[in-house]
């Protein structure tokens, strides 16, 4: 099967997960929100821990099953800076690719439309800068 069709199918599965969380729990599947709330409010977070266990266990299972490669693109300092920015930014902005990008756009939320557009453009600008810098270094 064409790799883009496989990606599309992967997207449909993510959509199915969002549908299951909505129909079953009445909640949006925002992973930054789930993770941040699981860290700060453990008492009412049983379902959040269950979701994260499924996400992490599923990652291990399917990466092995499909024998998928994953190669890092950043240095250790880059990873630390990026991790801080992603953690801080997603909580400050109230969502990430799943909460704003998939669920928020699915809800036709104007906040999520602005957020998704903004983090896409910021990500693209960042990669452009990285490419320019590595080009001049080489």
């Amino acid at each position, binding site marked *: 099967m064409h790799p*883009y069709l496989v990606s*599309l*199918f*992967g*997207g449909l599965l*993510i*959509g199915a997960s969002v*549908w299951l969380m*909505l129909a*079953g*729990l*009445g*909640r949006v599947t925002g*992973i930054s929100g789930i*993770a941040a709330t699981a*860290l700060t409010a453990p008492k009412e977070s*049983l379902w959040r821990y*269950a*979701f994260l*266990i*499924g*996400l*992490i266990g*599923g*990652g*291990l*299972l*399917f*990466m092995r099953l499909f024998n*998928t490669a*994953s*190669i*890092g*693109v*950043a240095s250790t300092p880059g990873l*630390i*800076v990026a*991790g*801080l*920015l*992603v*953690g*801080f*930014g997603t*909580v*400050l*902005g109230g969502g990430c690719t799943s909460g704003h*990008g998939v669920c928020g*756009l*699915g*809800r036709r939320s104007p*906040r999520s439309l602005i957020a998704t557009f903004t*983090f896409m453009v*910021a*990500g*693209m*600008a960042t*990669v452009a800068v*990285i*490419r320019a810098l590595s080009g001049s270094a080489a």
Partner: protein
Amino acid sequence: MSNIRAATIALFAGILFAAGLTLGGMMDPRKVQGFLDVGALFGWGGGKWDPSLAFVMGGALVVSLFAFGTVKSHHVPWVGARFELPTRRDIDAKLVVGAILFGVGWGIAGYCPGPALSSLFTGGTDILWFLGAMLPGMLVAKKWFS
């Protein structure tokens, strides 16, 4: 017990999400950065543009639009008394600044929170550095802004 039912549903949803991320290629930071590398479309930087992420998000969004479109105000979820969906519609500085910071980090490492967490056991030391910074970053933002 409704807590257990909710957790069981969430566990399956998490597994499904991981399957989608893995099949979609989103566990590989190269593919994510390859999508954000729009300069490659114009021959800049020597890379090749990778549209995979657009197919993943497109597929997920089609289902999501349908799912949220079918929720009516009189419905109740399988577990719980009511839907607990975000209600805010205002655009504020926190939303925009947060999205910018997130986007910059996403561009640097090619990881957003879902694939990062899902890669815990397969992403090597890279993911430990990333998550080791991401989780404290979340805690600091929670402490300062809520």
